[in-house]
């Protein structure tokens, strides 16, 4: 077959146009995906401590989490395992406590893993046992955890606990739907990832009597959490660290 000069130029130009066209389409698609418009949620929680019924002795959220995740009751305080726990306002927000109403500073707040958007704990894990999922949850894989506790040192919120002993003996009533942990791993709140996978909301949110815990998707402008964050003043723990916590405290 013989090509004329004109035919050769036309074929080359058409091939080049085809290749660059497909390249353009795929790169535009990738750019759209990287801006977070891929339909994935970003889970977050707001704690409305004015609605919390702690003064009536309510501990439902802690009890629900304890049962859902087989959290051991370790008698030794230094070996305590915490997923969701209470601390006074003044120790959670020490810089925002001066000249503030003592009724507020002596109010206990619910604390849990902040599921940071820029988590320091995942960066130091040597085995990839903890990482950030696309939906904002900072996950733990206990199969991979070697118990080095670098993540505990890296977390500025003390959200991670270590199993110094076998936790099995310290769980009153084992929930058959969730594994216990073994001696020598780090554990923390998983935002009820296993319940979200089944279309349920986190156990603490479901059990909260006063509707003080609001859970939802930050990427959905119509969600309850976005509505409440628009209308109320919300604080995050130590935002100056740049970790970007996904847990908000409503004033």
């Amino acid at each position, binding site marked *: 077959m013989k090509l004329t000069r004109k035919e050769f130029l036309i074929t080359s130009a058409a091939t080049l146009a085809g290749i660059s066209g497909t390249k353009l389409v795929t790169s535009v698609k990738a750019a759209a995906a990287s801006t977070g418009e891929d339909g994935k949620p970003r889970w977050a929680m707001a704690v409305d401590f004015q609605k919390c019924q702690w003064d009536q002795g309510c501990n439902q959220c802690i009890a629900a989490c304890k049962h859902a995740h087989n959290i051991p009751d370790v008698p030794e305080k230094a070996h305590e395992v915490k997923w969701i726990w209470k601390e006074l306002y003044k120790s959670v927000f020490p810089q925002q406590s001066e000249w503030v109403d003592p009724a507020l500073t002596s109010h206990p707040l619910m604390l849990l893993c902040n599921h940071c958007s820029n988590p320091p704990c995942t960066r130091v894990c040597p085995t990839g046992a903890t990482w950030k999922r696309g939906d904002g949850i900072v996950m733990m894989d206990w199969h991979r955890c070697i118990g080095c506790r670098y993540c505990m040192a890296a977390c500025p919120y003390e959200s991670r606990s270590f199993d110094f002993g076998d936790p099995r003996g310290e769980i009153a009533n084992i929930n058959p739907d969730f*594994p216990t942990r073994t001696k020598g791993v780090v554990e923390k709140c998983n935002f009820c990832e296993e319940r979200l996978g089944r279309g349920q909301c986190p156990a603490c949110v479901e059990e909260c009597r006063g509707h003080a815990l609001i859970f939802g998707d930050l990427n959905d402008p119509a969600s309850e959490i976005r509505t409440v964050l628009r209308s109320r003043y919300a604080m995050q723990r130590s935002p100056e660290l740049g970790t970007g916590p996904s847990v908000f405290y409503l004033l």
Partner: protein
Amino acid sequence: MRERVLIAAGLAVFLALFTYPVWWAAASGTRAAGPQLQLPQTASVCVAPAAKMRASHMQMLSDWRSDSVRRGVHQFRAADGRLFDASLSRTCLGQCHSKTEFCDRCHAYSGVSTPACWQCHNDLHSTARSIR
């Protein structure tokens, strides 16, 4: 040189006696008893054909683990289209099998050591069902 016949005869007798279990079993058609497994009463079809489960259930459990923990996919679609919770505790032990009368018996028969899974995972669903 006269011992040659004796040696050959001795060797033949030794070999015959040594291989006796093998050829006797082959000749009489009897086979060693397999493990006594308790099969589920409620369901008749597993998540995959029995031969595949026998050969590669451990790979399937490992895949379920990677899917649910690492990829956040908590469900498993069987080859015939049925949808299951990708969970040994909730699906296999929760709905069909007994750990002690199915899993453990075959593992003991084949000389497979108990996997370390049970340090964290539990078989409470199957225990609860056998008490009921």
